[in-house]
Structure formats: C-alpha cells, structure tokens
C-alpha cells in the first residue's frame, strides 16, 4: 500500500504523536483536574491560556516556541547549558509543538470526564475510611479513566495532524521533522507526486477517523456518558 519511504514518514509521525501525548498527559490531567474541581482567582485566565493554542494561528504558536526554545530563548539556553539538549530541527521539537497543540483538546476531554464523576462517591469513600488521596486513586480516577483514554486518543490524532506550529518551529527536515502533513505539503510542491499525496492523505483520513471513533466510544464508557446515551 505505502512505499518504504512513506512508511518511514508514518513511523516518524507515530513516534512524534506518541511522545507528544505522553509528555502532555500529566500536565493536561493536572490542568483538567484543577479547572474541573477548583474555583480560584485567575481560573478564567488559566482556562483561556489552555485554550489559546486552539484559536491562535499555529504559525504564531510555532514562532513563540522558537522564541522560547531557540538558541537565544530562555528555555532553549537552559536546556542547552544544563543538558546539552536542543529541540531545534529535531523530532523532539516536533513532539513539543504537537504536545502544545494537542493540550487544549486533551484538557477539554479530560475535564468533561472529571466533571461527570459524581463527587458523592468520594464522600462515601471517605466515610468508609479512605483518605482523600486514596479516594482519588480508587474512586475518582477509575471513574474518569475512560475519558482520560479518550483524551489520549484524541490528542494523538491531533498531534499526528500538526502542521503550522511544527513547520515554523522545527522546519521540514526529511527523517527528522517531516511528519505526515509536512510530507503531504512537500509532495504537493513536486509535480508528478500526486499518487504519493493521495496515499498519504487517505492514510491520514483513516487514522484520524479511527481515532475520533475510538475516542467517542471510550468517552461513552464513563458512567455519566453511559446514562446520557441510554436515554
């Protein structure tokens, strides 16, 4: 179906997408938890910041990443001097850009599932002797878990599709940062590569559709989702 060059593009995309969602997961869950459970000054601002990558032109996000993580940026200099690490023009940089772009979607999906957890179950657990920490691990997290998985799948699909922030932050380097969308874009520039474009595009459609369907199915497995859909 795909040529070996195309498979290596797909493999790179999966690697970038996988690293992106795993890196974003703890932060996304913490943000979703805080936004779902706590009322505090600045909550609206935090909510806005989380959602920013969703509405900002991706090129701007990429440029901001360049400012922060470039050789002269504060985060970039810090990584360079402490770890000898640079994200510039590396697949890790592509993963960072994808993680930032996937974060809002992941936070939204997780937040819905956390809000759907009936807090009275936690109260019941406390009266049975559970500390709030134990109640979190045994009651709240398992009840929200299908939603967390759904968020992972959705974030993964979003990461695979990332284009604008990636190309402006880490450029379009074959084998390093040229993921599926960037490869399709590059192929479009070359006359006679329509079949490659078609194959990669169809593959993208299948991957994205599969992810969205899987994520919906998972989201319906939360107790609240189940009730909604049984009506």
């Amino acid at each position, binding site marked *: 179906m795909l040529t070996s060059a195309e498979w290596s593009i797909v493999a790179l995309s999966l690697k970038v997408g996988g690293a992106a969602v795993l890196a974003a997961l703890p932060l996304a869950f913490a943000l979703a938890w805080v936004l779902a459970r706590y009322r505090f000054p600045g909550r609206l601002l935090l909510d806005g910041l989380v959602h920013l990558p969703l509405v900002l032109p991706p090129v701007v996000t990429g440029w901001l990443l360049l400012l922060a993580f470039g050789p002269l940026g504060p985060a970039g200099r810090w990584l360079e001097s402490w770890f000898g690490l640079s994200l510039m023009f590396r697949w890790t940089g592509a993963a960072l850009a994808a993680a930032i772009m996937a974060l809002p979607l992941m936070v939204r999906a997780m937040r819905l599932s956390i809000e759907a957890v009936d807090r009275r179950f936690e109260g019941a657990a406390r*009266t049975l002797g559970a500390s709030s920490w134990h109640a979190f691990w045994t009651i709240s997290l398992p009840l929200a878990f299908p939603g967390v998985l759904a968020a992972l799948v959705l974030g993964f699909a979003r990461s695979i599709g990332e284009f604008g922030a990636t190309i402006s932050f880490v450029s379009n380097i074959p084998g390093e940062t040229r993921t599926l969308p960037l490869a399709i874009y590059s192929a479009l520039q070359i006359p006679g590569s329509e079949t490659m474009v078609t194959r990669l595009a169809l593959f993208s459609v299948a991957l994205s559709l599969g992810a969205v369907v899987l994520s919906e199915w998972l989201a319906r497995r939360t107790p609240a989702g189940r009730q909604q859909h049984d009506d």
Partner: protein
Amino acid sequence: MTIDIDVAKRRGERLISARFTAGPGLTALFGPSGAGKTSLLDMVAGLLRPDRGHIRIGARTLFGDGIDLPPEARRVGYVFQDGRLFPHRRVRANLLYGQRIAPPTSRWMTLEEATSFLGIGHLLDRWPGSLSGGEAQRIAIGRALLAGPEILLMDEPLSSLDAARRGDIMTVIERIRDELKLPILYVSHDRDEVDRLATKVIAVDG
C-alpha cells in the same frame, strides 16, 4: 455510648441547627422533607462542616473544641438514601472497600458474617447496576458495617423501596439495633417507620 450533638450551620437563607443527646439504640431524626436532616447526618459524618457547636460520640470528640476530624478518622458508618454503591466495582469489592482500609483492631465483622447477616451471599459477583433497590440497600448497609463503625447513620434507607422490601430492610435495621447493638442515627419523614424502629425521637423542623 452517648451521642452528644449541638450544631448550627447556615446554608443560604436557612439555618440548620440541632441540639440533643442520645444513648444506645436507634435515634430517629424526624421531620418534614427539607428540614435539613440530611445535612445533620453529613455534619456528623464530616462531609459538611458546622459553623459552630460540637459532635461527640462516647468519649471521642469528632468536632468542636478546635477539633475537626476528617471523615475517614470518625468511624461513622453512613448508609445513604441512594445507596451510593461504587458503580465500577462488583458487590464484593464494594463490601470490602472500607474493611481493607480499617486497621484490624477496629473491624468487628467479617465478610462471611456480613453476608449471612444480610442474606447477600448470592450477590457478591454482581455489578451494583444490576441490583434491585432492596438488594442495593443491603449491600450499602453491609459496606458500612464492614468498615467497623462505632455508630451508623441512615438517611431514609427505605424511601426508594416498595412495601414488601421496606419490611425486609426494617427487620435488618432492628437486628442491627438489637443484635449488633450498634447505635443508629436514623433520618426519616415517615411516622410509621419511626414508630416501629425508634428508641428515641428527635423532632427536626428546620
């Protein structure tokens, strides 16, 4: 064991307050719906913080005098009106939830004793969603007992049951009162229930 309660809490426009002492047996908090009876139980359980007052069970102060024990340290069993069984755990895991946390010295009932006491041995592998109202209420009672409480709170445990099931569960409650000799704080707005079960009646009119 003496239950000594004197609490007040403002919720919006309403002031919920109660002041009473009770001994062993079943103490019914009797009054119309919306009088704040459930809020009183929540305060005893530690799920709701009174504005002032004290809650003492025997020699232990749960609240007051600068003390505010978290729910998990109160040893107060709570049977909720809606059962509130954990939907993602089978009946067995629901029953054992509190027992597994409780230190061995505070447990006074085993799973086998609880299942035969309540007649729920055949339900252990079921999911809470598949239980009838009466079955779910028995499991909720068993789950509370297995955590080794010193007192049991019951919030209208019969309200969602039909007449036949109500009789069954009332018999169970009488046996908790008389055989297990566990003090019970019982919330109800039903005169017949209170007449049959209560050792002492406290009127709560909000």
